[in-house]
């Protein structure tokens, strides 16, 4: 296993519990970490990239203990933080060179070559002499992944990478990640966007309120949701009642009433018919229904 997390809990100084008894085994390849905002994803990510020390638990990254062997962990780690927008006044190439140099690439000619290759790879070569702060949002994010990959890390941690990107940039970014994952790199992709997981991850975990709700493949998650999604047509009055009782995930106006999709363990009535689930339904099922049981 690439990353092994055992009994991980974390409490903030104010006593608030961020993570509770997390146990995860993360293999090579692209691993998705799905969960709503505030689920504890970022805390987990920050612990994994050695920015925070967990309160309890054991984490091994490629065989290195994250508490006692941080330097080794950091050497094999790449990290793209969530809000990677604010740059100091570096040019694109300088920024990447700095990151490369700090990762141990001390030979300047080799470093320069690697930086140029990476810039080509992420499509920023033409923009190499521009100040990073003047790049577009997508370009910044690509520069972010470039700095995370420049030293060819064994583990890449990417926190909410596609938030705020337009569809074209999002696809481009996913492809970059897929390309990286094909090189025997463990990529942990933390996101609340279900599409990111479905399109690129073979393994995933779902987190809510600091706990793992699901661990498996996206297909496994869908399977657990089968028979829990319902479609029904209702009047305005009925809609109000349904909305109070069930997790409504889709509402389409239909004549004088509504065509609804509802996630529920049992049929909500009103001639509801079972409906094949997608990951989004699964996400709602796990966060809204299973987690509250």
């Amino acid at each position, binding site marked *: 296993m690439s990353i092994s997390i055992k009994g991980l809990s974390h409490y903030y100084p104010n006593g608030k519990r961020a993570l509770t008894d997390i146990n995860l085994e993360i293999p090579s390849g692209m691993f998705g970490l799905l969960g709503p905002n505030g689920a504890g994803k970022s805390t987990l990510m920050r612990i994994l*990239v*050695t*920015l*925070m*020390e967990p309160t309890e638990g054991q984490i091994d990254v490629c065989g290195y203990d994250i*508490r*006692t*062997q*941080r*330097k*080794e962990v*950091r*050497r094999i*780690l790449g*990290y*793209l*933080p*969530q*809000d*990677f*927008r*604010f*740059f*100091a*006044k*570096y040019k694109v190439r*300088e*920024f990447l*060179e*700095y*990151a490369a*140099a*700090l*990762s*141990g690439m*001390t030979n300047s000619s080799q470093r320069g070559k690697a930086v140029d290759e990476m810039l080509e790879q992420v499509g920023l070569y033409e923009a190499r002499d521009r100040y990073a702060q003047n790049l577009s949002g997508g370009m910044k994010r690509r520069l*972010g992944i470039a*700095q*995370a990959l420049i030293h060819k890390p064994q583990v890449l941690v990417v926190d909410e990478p596609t938030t705020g990107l337009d569809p074209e940039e999002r696809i481009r970014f996913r492809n970059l990640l897929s390309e990286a994952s094909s090189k025997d790199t463990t990529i942990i992709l933390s996101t609340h966007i279900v599409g990111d997981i479905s399109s690129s991850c073979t393994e995933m975990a779902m987190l809510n309120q600091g706990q793992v709700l699901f661990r498996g493949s996206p297909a496994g998650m869908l399977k657990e949701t089968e028979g829990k999604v319902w479609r029904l047509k209702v009047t305005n009055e009925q809609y109000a009642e349904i909305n109070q009782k069930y997790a409504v995930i889709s509402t389409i106006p239909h004549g004088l009433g509504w065509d609804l999709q509802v996630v529920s363990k049992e049929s909500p009535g009103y001639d509801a018919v079972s409906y094949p689930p997608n990951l989004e339904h699964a996400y709602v099922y796990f966060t809204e229904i299973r987690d509250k049981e």
Partner: protein
Amino acid sequence: MGLGITNILIVSKYETKLLVRGWFFKVFAFLAVFTAIILGAIYILTQFPQPEVVNRSVIPYMFLLIMNVGQAVVSVFLASEYLKRDKQLDTSEVFYTRPLSNAEYLIGKMWATLKVFFILDFAVAMIALIMSLIKFGFALDYLSYLWYFLLLSVPTLVFIVGLSTTLMLILNNQAITMVILLAYIGVTLFYIDNLYYYLFDYIGFNLPMLKSVVTGFSGLSRLINHRMCYLLLGIGLILTDVSLFHRLANSRYSLLPWRIAAAVFLAGGLYAGYRHVHMYKVDEKYRADMVELDNKYVHIGGAVARSCELTVTQSGDSLSVRADMTVSPKEDASQLVFTLNPGFRINSITAPGHSMKYERLMHLIILTFDATLPEDEPLNLIMEYGGMADERICYLDISAEKLIENVKALSRLNVGKRYLFQDREYTMLTPESYWYPRPGVAYSDQSPEWQMSYFTDFTVNVTPNPGLKPISQGLCTANEDSTSYSFKPESSLPSISLLIGDYNPKSITVDSTLYTVWELGHWDDQFEVFDSIRDTVPYIIRDRRRNMEYQADMAYPFKRFQIVEVPVQFTSYKRVWTSAYEQLQPEMALVHERGFDMREFQFRNMKRSWTGRNNWNRRNNNMSEKEILVNILINSINFMMQSGNMSGSSRNGQWTMTQVDNPYFYRPLFYNFRYNVYSSDWPMANRMVESMTAENNARNNNWMRRMNGLSEDEKALILMGKYDFDRIMSDPEWEDLADNALELKTKDFFAPVSVAVGYESLVDSLSAKTRERAFANVSFDSILDWVQSYSGISLEDKIEAWNGTAQLACYKIGTPQITTVTTDTADIYQAEVTFENISDNPGFVNVEFVFYETENAGDEDKPTSMMVSVGPHETRRIVTHWFNIPSYIRVNTMLSSNLPHEINLNNTDWSTFEGTELTAEGVYNVRGGVDNTLPGEIIVDNEDSNLFSLSRPLRTGYLSKWIDKAKEKKNEFMYEGFSDWRTYSQWTLVTDQNLYGDYIRSAYLISPGDGGQYARWSIPLEVAGVYDVYYYAAPNMYENNNRNRRWNNNNNNNWNNNNNNGRRVTNDYNFEIGQFNTSDHVSMNMWRAEEGWNLLGTFRFEADTVRVTLNNRSGIRIIVADAVRLVKRER
């Protein structure tokens, strides 16, 4: 710990890019370079005169000192800005997840900050260096550039960067960090100064760091220790930051070594700080121990050294000396006490023919004889000693606070203080260093015995280190190969000095006196500039010497005069028992190298300056180069004829002018090194006789009095009325007033004799008596005996009353009367003036009848001044006859509480009469006292606290109240100065002879305003009736600059001003005059007011209180509340 230099350099490389790209740094760097260029252009490339010492070695100090202040502020901002950025921006986190350690990352960042400032410092220093090279060629002190960089810039930056990041990491708030640090810097710059021996001066802003070209820094080891304190603390703080940094360390235990290292450096810094203070404390303790020892031995074994032959051999840094002395005990004694610099180790002391033991206690040598030595019996002593002189013995009488005070030269450069120098290359030992054994103790705060000095017959033989030349007093002869020298003064001297160095002499003999200038080193020959007027120099010297001798009324007593250069740090202090400063020695003046802080001795610069000025004013001024040089030489000699300079300082918003003594004032050369009046009981004896017989410095000028509020004499009198005389003489706070107190006390001491024989006559006779015995020790008792035989008056009573609080008299002075009596031959003018002593203390008044043209007095031989004694509650009238009316009478009230203490009674204000008979000249006792009021007249003055009141000040804030309170506490003298340009926001008490008053002529001033401030006179009337109301105006005092306007006003009757509100206001004073609840408004145009009483109007009043209120609404510059007079009209 494993510090990766590569990682540090990487971080530093990229962080430097960030720094230099920031606008803040760009602006600062531009300003720094721009300022350096401008400074360089002003100081170096223009004609602006700059001392050669500065050009050689101090330019980098000036530049880096200014730079240091700027970068201390800017680096605070940049260092905290760094961490602020780290805290907020996610991009930093991607670096935190790299494998470098916290230490590498932080140190890299700190190094980036330090590096950019170091480069900037280097650039500024290079600008200074290049400009110096352009101007002065290659003869610069290159090392000083490195020294100042290491001593000033490095510790300051390391400390402030460390401190600001630490604070930022602890407080986590950039704004609070900035406020705290900027306040700290501000306090350092403007308040801390020399607190705890400059301990807190991390910027080095006040730390004495000036470097002499000859001897380098003063106290370099202390300087390095002080700077190490901040360097180590700075490094310690930076290392502490490694632990405080908000990033998980690479491993659990990786911070421990950094914590230990931080603790070690912080402890090292604290230890250096402790050591800094400790060194001073040890010195203070050592000095206190010396004083304690002195106190113990001050009364034991006094002696006079009759002769002293000193044979000095210099060996490396060290000196070995043999002193062959003949001493005489001042009284029968079995013990004799000598003082010798405690740094010198005694090798042997022998007294041929006497059995003797000696004990060395710090600086004292106590000789104990088996048999009693009879008084005045000559005793030959041979003392052999040597080693390194210890500076701590110098100025034991000067307080530690005074010693640590900074000397600032050229407005900002901090010069260290040195009193002696001794090393292989340069030695300077003045008498203050006690480099040869002197009978008695060095200092005692319990007996004045130690202040006595006696003339001794000196001989000095010197064998200096090879290549060096010795300088001392007397005729110098050298052996054949010039390896040893002998100095033999022609007469006995009070003391002797020894200087050894790479001296370069230039001599000229004029009228059998040898004048020599000794320049130190060969780096810049100042006197070369006079080569072109070599033939003229003797004439100038002769002429100036005659001038000086005429002014001193004495001939120059020595066969030679030497100007000897000494390192810039040489300093001395004023002493109350002598007017001589250490800068002047018999036959010589010790001047800072190349005239560092004295323009008069910077000949090359002066020439440059004069030539520049000449070129500038070519149309009007066509001075040739020779004329310029003649003027420069005359100026420099004339400098020795100036007793002092005016110096202004501001305290609590009150501007004070003081006269700062010129330590090179020639008088000690003519008087103090020639005459010596001694008295074991009266340490001031010599000074008293000097103040009576040598010409006095004009300390009391009226302009200074106006500025300061009181004259120096008046301040001294106020102190004398409150405190014991000894305290005034010894309190450093009042040292500027000590001379005045002594002169006043001395005049009062001799006053009974002056009354009997006339002051001038006494002075002439006393001078003649003193001058009979040049280069000899004259006892004060013999002077007193002579005074008694000369005048028949014993001064025993005065001696008893000497110490203690002065009993001040207080006089009412009558309006002088002039009576014209026509006799057969001429008109005779009988001038009379009356004094009433309203106090319980006897006193003396000195009265001088002054004629603008002296021949108007008539009889040339008739004294125009006289001293009169006026007993308690006694009234005395002086009657004199003249062929013309005196222009004015100058009245000096001696030891009195009158203010002003000296006034001029101008003849325009006198009462004049025609008479037929003359009253015989003389001093008459008068009954009834002095009454300047007329019948039916009532006057209320501002000094009458029961009947005069003022409005409350407008300011009510706590801060201003506190400041006012502090001000009140500190102002010993109550009366303030007056200047035309100052704003008086509240009623301010001043005194002036033009104001009204019984014996204190004072008034309150305020600047004009909206009329909210007022002064009120409440005059009780016993009789109802019609009264004329007058106001006392003194336009001469406060309307000097309005005189011309007054003149204009007469031609243009409608002269008005606009006040601040744009409303038209007049130059009137506005009064409300009335009784009960009614009043009339009366205005008085002050530009037309006459000196003295001015009629405000005529009113009918009931027998009740009349209120006259003056408000501050006016267009005039100043409003003065003085006195109001009511005169009842006869029906």
